[in-house]
């Protein structure tokens, strides 16, 4: 049996990992400590922060729900079928990741703004994407969609297609096989993608501020307070959204992680 002597390689991995974790944790912790519990309580009592927090969380949730409805079928299609233009579609879906977000906002404005093709079409029906919640949802959807589609696609690809073949021979339609066999095996990955997308959505600033400065999402409110009143005034809303995001991620991870543990045990 091999000894368990720590090697220089693993020590280097630990040091590198610790540096990276500290790089992420320090600013967040410093912000929370800087704001103080009292200040956070006071911030929660302020109507504009509460409204902004709720708007941010719910708009990101709506964007995620829309992406779930249209993105999961696309992810499944990309995972299961080969067709002409598949690579191009994958590239298009990933485009928002590399777009500067202010540029994404401008691009959305040219299509969905008052003078945009879609904006003009929908205006008679009272639907507007500028300075509205719909605009915020649109901006969040655009920039965060790849996180859900890519994660779901990878997860579906990991489910052996032959499960669906068996389900089909047992009488299931292609849709039935997906719903009863594939999705139940892939839901954790899809949920993981949805949480990532939601997290990306609540942090969006660049695209949102171009389409809808008002009503203010938390990132816009934080920016406005920083510009108008300085760092101390900007800290409470920033800390609140970080805490909300952290709690949601923690809950999602505790739901997702047991599966990973089981996988390791199965593999042994």
């Amino acid at each position: 049996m091999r000894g368990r002597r720590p090697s220089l390689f693993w020590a280097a991995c630990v040091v590198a990992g610790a540096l990276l974790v500290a790089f992420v944790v320090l600013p967040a912790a410093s912000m929370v400590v800087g704001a103080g519990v009292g200040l956070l309580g006071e911030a929660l009592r302020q109507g504009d922060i509460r409204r902004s927090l709720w708007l941010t969380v719910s708009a990101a949730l709506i964007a995620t729900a829309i992406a779930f409805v249209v993105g999961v079928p696309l992810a499944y299609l990309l995972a299961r079928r080969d067709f002409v233009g598949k690579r191009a579609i994958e590239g298009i879906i990933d485009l928002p990741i590399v777009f500067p977000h202010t540029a994404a906002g401008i691009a959305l404005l040219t299509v969905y703004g008052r003078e945009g093709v879609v904006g003009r079409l929908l205006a008679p029906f009272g639907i507007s994407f500028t300075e509205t919640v719909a605009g915020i949802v649109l901006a969040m959807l655009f920039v965060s969609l790849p996180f859900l589609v890519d994660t779901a696609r990878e997860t579906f690809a990991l489910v052996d297609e032959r499960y669906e073949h068996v389900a089909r021979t047992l009488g299931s339609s292609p849709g039935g096989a997906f719903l009863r066999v594939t999705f139940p095996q892939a839901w954790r990955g899809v949920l993981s993608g949805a949480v990532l997308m939601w997290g990306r959505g609540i942090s969006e600033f660049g695209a949102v501020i171009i389409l809808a400065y008002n009503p203010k999402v938390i990132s816009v409110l934080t920016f406005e307070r920083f510009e108008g009143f300085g760092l101390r005034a900007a800290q409470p809303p920033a800390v609140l959204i970080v805490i909300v995001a952290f709690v949601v991620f923690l809950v999602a991870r505790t739901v997702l992680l047991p599966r990973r543990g089981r996988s390791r045990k199965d593999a042994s």
Partner: protein
Amino acid sequence: MIGLHGVEVAAGDFSVGPLDLDVPAGEYAVLLGPSGAGKTLVLEALAGVRRPRAGRLLVDGVDVTRLPAERRRVGLVFQDGLLFPHLSVAENVAYGLHRSNGERTGWRRRPAADRLGQLAGEVGITRLMDRRPATLSGGERQRVALARALAARPRALLLDEPLSAVDVEAREGLQDLLRRLNVDEGLTVLHVTHDLGEAFAVGGLFVVLAAGRLQQVGAPLDVLRRPASVEVARFAGARNVFEARLVPGDSNRLALAAGGTLRISGPVPADVRHAVVRADEITVLPADHAPVGEGDSCLTGRVRRVVCAGATSVVEVDVPPLFRAAITARELETLHIGPGSTVGLRVPAAAVHLV
């Protein structure tokens, strides 16, 4: 019955066919061939999960070529069982049950529950019904997969290497079960394998596929003793395949391309190109052996090596050409042979098969 008429199936650059095959109703056919022969493609086309490029597929007399998989009523069992991991054993079996004959009741309800119990008893999984697939052994998984396939009342059962991930003891039990299902239920079975031993244990009809082409269809012993091609001979375990031609003016003797001759008997095809002799048909004799039967070949050569494989060993003898003969452990001890020994070989004329 299962019928393939002019069927061609493709996957990327690889294609199988055109294939013409009729497996009679109630037959247990084994689709044999080396890895990469295209066996699984044929199975997938029959199951309806891969569209054939050409041809017609028949199951139980029904043309299923254009039917979707869910309406073909063929059971499909893969090598690893592929039980749905998020469902219990009972729920896995009930999956097929719900959709057979319009039964759409939950598995706990009658008559679905009765059928479930009957199936569980039939394949020996009654005690496993509440277990999760991850906790089952390979053999148990295959039994559950079989029960699940049978629950949908298939007209034919397609098995893709169903025993290759199962230990020896469980394999024998499953072989018995498969044969019983075939005989008792009259179920037509097409069983894909590359394992000749497994094929002999279950098969009533051998279908040999190599390099995308159907090489031979026949009874197991026919394929073993009278292979239709060099590919089939090699796949069927013939260890001595020699290029050969008939000796001019002697219809009972073949000249081997690598040197030497072999006596033959029976009718000789005009275009004979190869002589095939199974290793177990050759007898190894001491160097000073007595004369052998008149019609047989008697050769002398030097042992190159002896490959021991448990109860039997293969002796490689340089005559030339290099012959391989199978002998028992007892014979090996009696003959006292080893590398460098001189031995005699008796090759019965009737054992030389020409292709």
